[in-house]
């Protein structure tokens, strides 16, 4: 998932910025999302890359996740567990997580000896 932010105000005396965050593919303009004042002493301002990373890690990531959680659920879904039966699954909408881990499925084979 990609995010965006917009600095609305910069106060050099107070070393403070006011920022809005949103997802890149948010359904509304970034102007519609909440703004937050951030003290630059909390961020790594060594260069642009460090600034963006620290801004997102300390503030942006959580705000963007919260925005997504608040959005309405259009597709009612259910969870599944246990024995897999494709016949039962046809036509159902299943809830699942988008897996961001780097773990892949190991291919194994059960044999009878």
């Amino acid at each position, binding site marked *: 998932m990609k995010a965006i932010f917009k600095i609305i105000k910069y106060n050099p005396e107070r070393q403070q910025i006011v920022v809005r965050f949103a997802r890149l593919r948010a359904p509304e303009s970034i102007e519609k999302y909440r703004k937050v004042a951030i003290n630059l002493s909390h961020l790594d301002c060594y260069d642009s890359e460090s600034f963006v990373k620290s801004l997102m890690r300390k503030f942006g990531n959580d705000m963007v996740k919260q925005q997504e959680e608040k959005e309405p659920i259009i597709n009612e879904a259910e969870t599944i567990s246990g024995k897999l039966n494709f016949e039962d699954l046809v036509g159902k909408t299943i809830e699942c997580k988008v897996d961001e881990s780097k773990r892949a*499925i*190991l291919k194994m*084979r059960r044999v009878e*000896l």
Partner: protein
Amino acid sequence: MNPSIKRFVKKCEDFYICAEIGEKMAVGVEYADDRLTLYQYIVKGKISFNTIDGDNFTREICESKDGLIDVKKYLHQRLLLTADEDFFMIGFNSINKNVTWDGELKTKSFTGDSNSWLLVLDGKPTINGKSLSRFDYAKLEDKLYDVTLNDGVIGVFTKTCLF
């Protein structure tokens, strides 16, 4: 680009198997809640298991010649993995935190136990006339298993107790 570790995992009936392939100098972290591995087998290379607890630091260097390595001492501990060489490692994990297992490598024919599972860790051994490959696994029964190793490596894991 930084050296990396790629992780694989597969849930089987009573246990799960993990495998990691990493490049020399790669660093991996396992948090206490995720550290459920009971046994490791290093197929290739050399890797260090490091623990840091306050001022105390421990390092265990593991490699293929160590055979099946009992790593229960690291259960539910923070573990820092550092690759001393390019490596390929396989881990046997309990699904249930309250169940423990005993593992051993089999080099010749043996009598099975219905609480045991067999896992091919390397090579192409033949058991009871069936040719097997790495990551093939089987539930064992109370019967004789005729093994031709063919330079393969076979692990047998037996559920030993419920806490």
